C-alpha cells in the first residue's frame, strides 16, 4: 500500500492504523454446480448397478444371509485370521532381519540377504505354498543332527509339515522378502546424522540400529506394512490350494455341494471386506502412535474429528482456527 501511516486517505488507511481486529470477511461462497451434476450421475450409476444385482433372477439373497453366519464360515474366518497373523509375524521378523543384513558392512551377510530376496520375490507365492505342501514327496524324512556324532532326531515330513504349516511357510517366507524391502526403505530414510550422533555417544552399530534408527524408520515402515497385512489377508486365500480350511476353501466347499457359487462368493467377500476395514482402522492408530515427535500436532482420531464436527455445527465460528482445548488434548506428550 502506498498510503502513509498517518491515515490521510481512505477507509483502508484508517482500519490499518487503528490496531483493532477488523470484522471477519463475510463473502458470498463460490457456487459449485458441477459437484451436483457429478453427484447425480454417480448416484444414478450406483442405483442402476445395485438394482441389476438385486433383481438378478437367480441370485438368492436369502442364501447370502443364511450363509453369512454359518458356523463353518465362522470357523474358516478364524483360520484366515490365524494364517494372516502367523504369516505376517514371520514376514515382519524375518523381513527386519533381512533388511539389516542387506545393509550390513559384512559382504557375506548382505549377499545372503540379496539372494533370499531375489529368490522369494522372484517366484509366485502360489508355487511356494504348493512346494511346501508337497515337500514330503521329495523329502519323506526330516533329520536334524549334529555332524560326526550319533545325536540325531528324525521325523516324518508328512507329520511335521501339515497343510496349515505349509501355507504359513509359503506365505510368511515370501512376505519376508517384501517386508525386508519395506524395512530397508525405512532405514535408509533416517538421516545419517542420527547414526553419527549416536556413534559419537559411544553406541555400537547394533544398538544404534535398535534404539535410534529403527524407531524412526517405523514411521516410514508402518503404512506399507499395513498395506502388506491387508494384502496378506486376501492372499491367504491361496492356502486353499494346500487344502487349508480357510475362508475361500470353505466357501468353495459349500458351493460345490449346493451350487450357490456367486452367493457364497458374496459371503466371502463381505467377510474379507469387514476384516480389511478393521485393519485399515487399526493402522490409523498405529501410525498415529509412531508419529510422536515428528508431527507437532498429531492428526485427530475419527472420534475427535466427529466431536469437532458436532461442536462446530453448534458454534459455527467464521474461521476454522485450532481451538486450544482440543489441540492440547492431542499433543504427543499428554500421556
Amino acid at each position, binding site marked *: 500500500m502506498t498510503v502513509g501511516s498517518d491515515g490521510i486517505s481512505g477507509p483502508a488507511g484508517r482500519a490499518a492504523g487503528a490496531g483493532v481486529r477488523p470484522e471477519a470477511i463475510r463473502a458470498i461462497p463460490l457456487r459449485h454446480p458441477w459437484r451436483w451434476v457429478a453427484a447425480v450421475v454417480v448416484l444414478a450409476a450406483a442405483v442402476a448397478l445395485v438394482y441389476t444385482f438385486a433383481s438378478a433372477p437367480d441370485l438368492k439373497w436369502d442364501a447370502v444371509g443364511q450363509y453369512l453366519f454359518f458356523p463353518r464360515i465362522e470357523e474358516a474366518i478364524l483360520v484366515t485370521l490365524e494364517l494372516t497373523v502367523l504369516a505376517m509375524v514371520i514376514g515382519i521378523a524375518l523381513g527386519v532381519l533381512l533388511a539389516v543384513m542387506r545393509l550390513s558392512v559384512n559382504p557375506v551377510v548382505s549377499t545372503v540377504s540379496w539372494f533370499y530376496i531375489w529368490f522369494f520375490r522372484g517366484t509366485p507365492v502360489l508355487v511356494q505354498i504348493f512346494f511346501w505342501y508337497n515337500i514330503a514327496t521329495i523329502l519323506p524324512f526330516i533329520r536334524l543332527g549334529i555332524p560326526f556324532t550319533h545325536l540325531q532326531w528324525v521325523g516324518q515330513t508328512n507329520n511335521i509339515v501339515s497343510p496349515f504349516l505349509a501355507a504359513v511357510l509359503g506365505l510368511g517366507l515370501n512376505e519376508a522378502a517384501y517386508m525386508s524391502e519395506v524395512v530397508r526403505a525405512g532405514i535408509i530414510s533416517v*538421516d545419517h*546424522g*542420527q547414526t*553419527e*550422533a*549416536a*556413534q*559419537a*555417544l*559411544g*553406541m*555400537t*552399530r547394533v*544398538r544404534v540400529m535398535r*534404539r*535410534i534408527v529403527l*524407531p*524412526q524408520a517405523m514411521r516410514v515402515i508402518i503404512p506399507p506394512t499395513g498395506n502388506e497385512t491387508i494384502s496378506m489377508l486376501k492372499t491367504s486365500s491361496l492356502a486353499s490350494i494346500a487344502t487349508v480350511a480357510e475362508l475361500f476353501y470353505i466357501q468353495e466347499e459349500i458351493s460345490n455341494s449346493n451350487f450357490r457359487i456367486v452367493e457364497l462368493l458374496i459371503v466371502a467377500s463381505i467377510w474379507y471386506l469387514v476384516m480389511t476395514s478393521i485393519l485399515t482402522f487399526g493402522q490409523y492408530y498405529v501410525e498415529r502412535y509412531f508419529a*510422536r*515427535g*515428528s508431527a*507437532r500436532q498429531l492428526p485427530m482420531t475419527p472420534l475427535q474429528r466427529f466431536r469437532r464436527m458436532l461442536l462446530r455445527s453448534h458454534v459455527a465460528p467464521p474461521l476454522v482456527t485450532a481451538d486450544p482445548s482440543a489441540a492440547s488434548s492431542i499433543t*504427543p*506428550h499428554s500421556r
Partner: protein
Amino acid sequence: MAGPMVLAEAVHKSYGRLEVLRGIDLEVAPREVMCIVGPSGSGKSTFLRCINHLEKIDAGRLSVDGELVGYREHDGKIYELREREVCRKRAEIGMVFQRFNLFPHMTALGNVVEAPTRVKGEPRAVAEERGRALLARVGLADKVDVYPNQLSGGQQQRVAIARALAMQPKLMLFDEPTSALDPELVGDVLDVMRGLAQDGMTMVVVTHEMGFAREVGDSLVFMDGGVIVESGNPREVLANPQHERTRAFLSKVL
C-alpha cells in the same frame, strides 16, 4: 604434568583421490580451548571427525589422552581396534554437530539419559537426576519433557550439548555449533560453551564466530587446503595475521 589431550602428527586423509587433510600437526593441552577456523572445504570438520574416529585417517598419528585413535600399537605394529573398543573411547569424547542431530523420537531428557543408561549402564534414576541438572545448566529446566521438534534451534543445540556432557567426557568437540542458528539464538549457545570453558573442559571448536575465538579461545588454528596455515594466540592471530591467506580470509569474515 599430563601429556596433551589431543596430539596430531602429520595426519593425512583422502576421499578417493581428493586429499582433504595434507599433514596436520597440532597439540591440545588439557583444559585448553582450541578454535579452528578456515574457509569451507579446508578440512577442519573432517579433522574434528577424525578425533573421535567417525573418519579414519590414512597416514600420520592421532592420539587422544595418550592413546591412538582407532588403533592399538603393540611391538611396533598397528592393529585396528574392535568396534567395542572404538565405542568405549568415543564415549569419553563429546561431540556437538552443526545440525544438532537430536533423537526426534525422544524427549529432551530422553536424549540426555540415553547414552549414560544404555552405554555406561548407569541406573536410570542417577542418569535422570544428572540429566535434569545438565538441562538446568544449559537453561532448559522447563523443557525436560519436550520433544526436539518443539524446541527452537538454539534450544535444540543446548540439549545436544547437555546430551554430550551427560557422558562426562574428558574432551568436547564442536562442529560449527552455531552455523545453523538464527543470529539471535547464537548468543545462548555461546554462553553455554563459555561456561564450559570456564569450568576447565578441554574443547576443540570448529567455528566461524571470531568473537568467541578471541574471547574464549586459548589458541586459534587457521586451516586452508588441508593444512594449518597459521596458529597461535587468538588475539594475536586475529589482530595481526602473519600469513597472506589468513589476512585475506579474516578481512572477509571480520
